[in-house]
């Protein structure tokens, strides 16, 4: 580059090999964290159980092939067809497993947290909640799913949406929670709270063991918000 012009790699070439390597590694870390909008690398994660992860990936794949069958224009692996050039906005797919909250004998609250880095700079394209019902006996039985949102007036939560389902047998249900997750994405701590209520004789709506492969999860798809257009004067 022209003398005095700054570019990340130019200065590196002049360093001694050892120092050069360290400088490049530091540059790589800084570049990746900046693009992920992370102030620092995340702490050591608590990965989900292998069973829960494999089940979630299978359900996501099943969902994609259903969508692909419904919309033949999509690519084989469920990706959207390439968009027109210049539309290269960064997209995110997020898989969030539930944290269990307060519970009674036949109801439980679930929390799904979303990181501020992603939530603060993207818009939700779609979000789906996956729940497994372990019906103790066949036949239609009523269950209720409530989406709760923070109450601006205080620490409690208010009802945002209630869905009643008739469960015929054990199995998975998926619910569209896109609007609820989008409404969170402007908040300080974006956290989706879901309350499940089942008939008294079912016992808890949640699997007894967190490592159970039927643990509830949310799959969300988000896209970086288009930068504000500069109005030409």
């Amino acid at each position, binding site marked *: 580059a022209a003398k005095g012009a700054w570019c990340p*790699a130019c200065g590196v070439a002049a360093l001694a090999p050892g120092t050069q390597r360290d400088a*490049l590694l530091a540059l790589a*870390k800084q*570049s990746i964290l900046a693009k992920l909008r*992370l102030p620092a690398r995340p702490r050591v994660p608590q990965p989900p159980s292998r069973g829960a992860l494999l089940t979630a990936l299978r359900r996501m794949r099943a969902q994609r092939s259903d969508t692909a069958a419904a919309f033949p224009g999509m690519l084989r692996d469920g990706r959207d067809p390439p968009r027109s050039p210049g539309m290269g906005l960064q997209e*995110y797919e997020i898989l969030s497993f539930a944290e269990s909250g307060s519970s009674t004998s036949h109801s439980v609250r679930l929390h799904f947290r979303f990181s501020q880095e992603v939530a603060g700079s993207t818009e939700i394209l779609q979000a789906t909640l996956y729940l497994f019902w372990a019906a103790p006996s066949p036949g239609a039985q009523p269950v209720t799913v409530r989406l709760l949102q923070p109450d601006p007036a205080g620490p409690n939560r208010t009802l945002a949406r209630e869905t009643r389902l008739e469960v015929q047998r054990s199995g998975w249900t998926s619910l569209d929670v896109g609007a609820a997750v989008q409404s969170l994405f402007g908040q300080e701590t974006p956290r989706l709270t879901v309350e499940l209520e089942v008939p008294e004789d079912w016992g808890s709506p949640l699997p007894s063991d967190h490592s159970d492969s039927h643990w509830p999860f949310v799959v969300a798809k988000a896209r970086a918000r288009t930068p504000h257009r500069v109005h030409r004067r």
Partner: protein
Amino acid sequence: GVNCGGDPRMCCRQEFFVDFKEIGWEDWIIQPEGYHMNYCAGLCPLHMAGIPGLAASFHTAVLNRIKAASAAAAVDSCCVPTQRRPLSLLYYDRDSNIVKTDIPDMIVDSCGCT
């Protein structure tokens, strides 16, 4: 584009692989195992500046016209990326959610002189 040999003189692409295990990031980045942080290095002497195909562009064509008019008017030429691709990452975020994203323009595939 040209890959740098042992001692890059002319504008070329210097390969540089960052192994996430080496920097202690393998616990939160699930895939891939590393990042090809290639970069452009080397000189762009006048006779190489703007050779179409190295960094063929309208900008280059204009520069060629200026040089054709008078060598003194020619400006400095830079060794820059001419082709880049996204880095696909699968990682755990701060809440241990699993996130997949493609970061655009993160991997330099070829370099050239402006």
